[in-house]
């Protein structure tokens, strides 16, 4: 794609909005469906997310990251807000088994964009418990409390694994991330 869809959306191109929905509708829906308790709620959230995407399209800067990451950042923000309003999602889905965590590493070999390949490589360097906690939070939308109850881990330990895992990923992907001058560097 020569001109990013969001740049065209910001310029008022209706066709670009459609391209954007085609390209990213599935990933936003998949994330919302996994994070929220019902399909109905996931549909509401997906609508809300895309409205936010249209409103913020002009903030997208291709120099600072991909469109997908930009849209998922908006999606995650809205989902986190929703989950917090609900007081965190109870652990409704089955705990991902070892296969799913192995599967993340296996996907490294797929023909994926560089950025994502690098994230897979970074993920492979995390400890299993760090990956597990992060996946339950980011994909299944679980609160730290729900994760702790689900995997029998003290709350502080859950937070600690998540923070360390995220920090480690930031260290490994430092040049992919937008950094403000003087920011605490990874």
């Amino acid at each position, binding site marked *: 794609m020569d001109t990013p869809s969001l740049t065209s959306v910001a310029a008022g191109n209706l066709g670009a*909005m459609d391209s954007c929905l085609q390209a990213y509708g599935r990933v936003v*829906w*998949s994330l919302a469906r996994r994070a929220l308790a019902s399909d109905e709620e996931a549909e509401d959230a*997906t609508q809300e997310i895309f409205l936010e995407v249209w409103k913020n399209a002009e903030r997208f800067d291709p120099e600072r990251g991909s469109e997908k*990451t930009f849209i998922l*950042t908006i999606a995650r923000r809205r989902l986190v807000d929703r989950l917090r309003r609900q007081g965190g999602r109870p652990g409704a889905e089955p705990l991902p088994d070892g296969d799913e965590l192995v599967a993340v590493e296996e996907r490294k070999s797929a023909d994926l964009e560089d950025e994502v390949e690098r994230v897979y490589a970074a*993920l492979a360097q995390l400890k299993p418990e760090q990956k597990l906690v992060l996946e339950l939070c980011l994909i299944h939308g679980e609160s730290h409390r729900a994760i702790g109850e689900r995997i029998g881990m003290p709350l502080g330990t859950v937070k600690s694994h998540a*923070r360390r895992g*995220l920090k480690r990923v930031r260290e490994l992907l430092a040049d992919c991330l*937008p950094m403000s001058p003087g920011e605490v560097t990874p």
Partner: protein
Amino acid sequence: MTEARKQRLEELLADRALWGLEEGEQQELRHLLDEFGLDEQEALDSWETSTSLLTVAFLGNREENMPEGLAKTLETDALKHFLKNQSMSLEDVSNAIEPEEHKPRLTAVPASRPWASWLLTAAAVLLSAFLIADRFATETLPSLADQRSELVASATDLLRYDWSEGPSDLRGQPSGDVMWSDEQQSGFMTFRGLPANDKQSTQYQLWIFDKERDAAKPVDGGVFDIPAEGGEVIVPIEAKIDVREAFGFAVTVEEPGGVVVSEREHIVVLAGL
């Protein structure tokens, strides 16, 4: 900058990006950002980008199709948003047609100005509505049956097989076919008699066997649902990576969103194998 306060700042930024913060923590974060002279939005963007990258990786190829109703709602929302912004720009157009410096001349015919302005705006709105309607007419996607016919007409390397029943007890009485073009990286499956799935607990997943890849690792052709209404169902194939030389197809029943490696416990239909 004490190490402990820097560490606390990182903890709060991580927590904010992962779970959000309580009001008290939010205030603490703002104080620390001020203390270190950091821009709040840029710092949050940076940490949230990290979680988004991780989310992309965790989701991998487990993306699911949106419900059709939602897809249409999103298109309508997009159109509404577009029209809302369009009407704002039409005011600008109207203003441009009747610029400020021309006011003295227009005040000479005060009675006509509101009408002139209204007519110009109305004309612009009507023109815009026609243009949008035309644009949508040309952008409306053809039906899946039309897309399949188009593939049949245009592909010079079309592979087409009838489905045969797989060994799983979940297969029902399936029939239909699958067609695929390596050249176009596009294809369609047609089903009749494949049981409707409960998408809360299972989804169907297509696997494409590629002569140029290890047969033990077929290409993920995407997940799909069979609705309860029955009748013929056409499903577009969404290969997650390039298929160089397809030779066989299998559909399995998997968990919602599909799997990366199938246990092949429930193969419901096969083709070319």
